[in-house]
């Protein structure tokens, strides 16, 4: 697990002292050291569609401006999501296929099978349950002493939610977090630190556990039991996906996708929201004075945090993008984290502004046919979290430097020590 720890601690140079063509935006240390902002600013200003001929992930284009990202993301006929949407290529020893890494029509079939579970109508019926679970977590937090917000709140809350939408055994819910984390943290995928053996074992355990759950639910239905409204039951009920269990790569890939999609994204936005309210105390004051701003603040946080830094495409034909000639077969990385800070489109982009106009117009969910399916669920979890925080706490003070994830894909926090002050 420590093979890259030295690399992680290396001091990164000032981006303006580097030759422009050598700037490598895939270096995970940019994110774990929180130094990515100036690197992207220079590239956005001087070479917005930036080619790097050599990197640990092979040659790739970086698309860094808001409008260029929109152009790529909405053009799935030129920019394919196959074979995979992270910058690195998956290990051939772990066959993985999922709908985020598929083009139409297969993408549409598989996505349609499961999206009902995160549709707003279903979410509305889950709101009370989510609120009571969030309240339970908050009521048990220590006041006046420091604790890790990431493990005590952000992880706990998202794993409960995942267990609910998968109808997964509640007492084993921490496994979902573990599998999700290890799924994305392979060195070859995102520059992460997971070791291959541990990752294999974890993914194997994930597949076996979900296969058992799949068979249990199928047996329940065969006995005449009412079909559930969870992810697995929906896959079993849909004619395009009911035999997915017999296609192991798809089975593992899609379950992995749904877990990852609902896990570190929301988790890191929850942690990021607390950090943001510390970094921008005047915005926290605005929010406390007017809790009606919570939904807008949620969108603003999702933009500012950008919990997934990038998505990758492959050009299916030659294409000119903002003056650069992309060739068929080239890897094209859309850096959402940069587009969301593009000063050409977003005023004062580094600033969190809880009452920002058009806060919903950000790139964090992607655009086009691969737009985040669980966006409303993520927003709802954040909204309820903050509604409940404002009821209970005077402040949540970050009392140490947060430890950030060493990855160019998951943009988030390993840990963040805080101290809370109750209102009463």
């Amino acid at each position, binding site marked *: 697990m420590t093979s890259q720890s030295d690399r992680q601690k290396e001091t990164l140079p000032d981006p303006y002292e580097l030759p422009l063509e050598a700037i490598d935006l895939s270096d995970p240390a940019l994110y774990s050291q929180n130094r990515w902002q100036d690197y992207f600013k220079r590239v956005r200003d001087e070479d917005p569609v930036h080619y790097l001929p050599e990197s640990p992930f092979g040659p790739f284009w970086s698309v860094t401006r808001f409008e260029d990202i929109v152009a790529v993301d909405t053009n799935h006929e030129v920019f394919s999501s196959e074979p995979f949407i992270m910058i690195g290529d998956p290990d051939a020893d772990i066959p993985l296929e999922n709908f985020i890494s598929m083009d139409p029509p297969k993408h549409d079939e598989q996505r349609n099978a499961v999206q*009902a579970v995160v549709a707003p109508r279903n979410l509305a019926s889950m709101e009370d349950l989510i609120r009571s679970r969030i309240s339970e977590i908050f009521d048990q937090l220590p006041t006046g002493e420091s604790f890790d917000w990431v493990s005590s709140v952000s992880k706990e809350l998202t794993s409960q939610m995942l267990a609910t939408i998968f109808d997964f055994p509640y007492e084993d819910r921490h496994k979902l977090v573990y599998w999700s984390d290890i799924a994305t943290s392979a060195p070859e995928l995102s520059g992460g630190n997971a070791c291959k053996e541990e990752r294999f074992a974890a993914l194997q355990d994930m597949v076996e556990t979900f296969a058992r759950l799949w068979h249990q639910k199928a047996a329940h239905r065969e006995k005449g039991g009412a079909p559930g409204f969870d992810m697995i039951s929906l896959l079993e009920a849909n004619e395009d996906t009911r035999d997915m269990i017999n296609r192991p790569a798809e089975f593992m890939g899609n379950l992995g996708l749904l877990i990852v999609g609902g896990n570190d994204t929301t988790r890191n936005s929850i942690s990021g929201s607390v950090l943001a309210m510390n970094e921008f105390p005047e915005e926290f004051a605005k929010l406390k004075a007017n809790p009606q701003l919570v939904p807008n603040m949620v969108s603003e946080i999702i933009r500012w945090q950008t919990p997934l830094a990038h998505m990758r495409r492959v050009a299916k034909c030659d294409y000119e993008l903002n003056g650069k000639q992309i060739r068929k077969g080239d890897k094209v990385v859309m850096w959402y984290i940069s587009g969301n800070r593009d000063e050409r489109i977003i005023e004062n982009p580094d600033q969190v502004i809880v009452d920002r106009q058009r806060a919903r117009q950000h790139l964090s969910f992607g655009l086009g046919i691969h737009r985040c399916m669980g966006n409303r669920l993520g927003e709802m979890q954040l909204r309820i979290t903050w509604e409940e925080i404002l009821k209970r706490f005077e402040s949540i003070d970050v009392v140490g430097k947060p430890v950030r994830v060493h990855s160019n894909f998951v943009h988030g926090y390993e840990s963040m020590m805080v101290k809370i002050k109750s209102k009463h």
Partner: protein
Amino acid sequence: MIEVKFIEHSGEVHEVTAESGASLMQAALNNSVPGIDADCGGGCACGTCHVIVSPEWIDKVGSPNETEAIMLQMTPEGCERSRLSCQLQLNDELNGLVVELPEFQM
């Protein structure tokens, strides 16, 4: 000026006017009609400006374009009269148009 009527899922009615050439989405946003999120700002790329055209207007409005149809597939409340309001350009032919809003945008 073109007159358009938006009917919220709750039944509440919003009557607005817009210039010919404007999109239906823009007409909704300019008049603060609730329930049109328009997350992508009108690029046919998010599906959150979904409207359901009233049966008597559907022939004049016509069917969704190719990209629009793909985005509409992702909307659980979609039906054969669904359109994305950013893709609907208003003109004199559509004066008096009536559209319903879905319960939720997704």
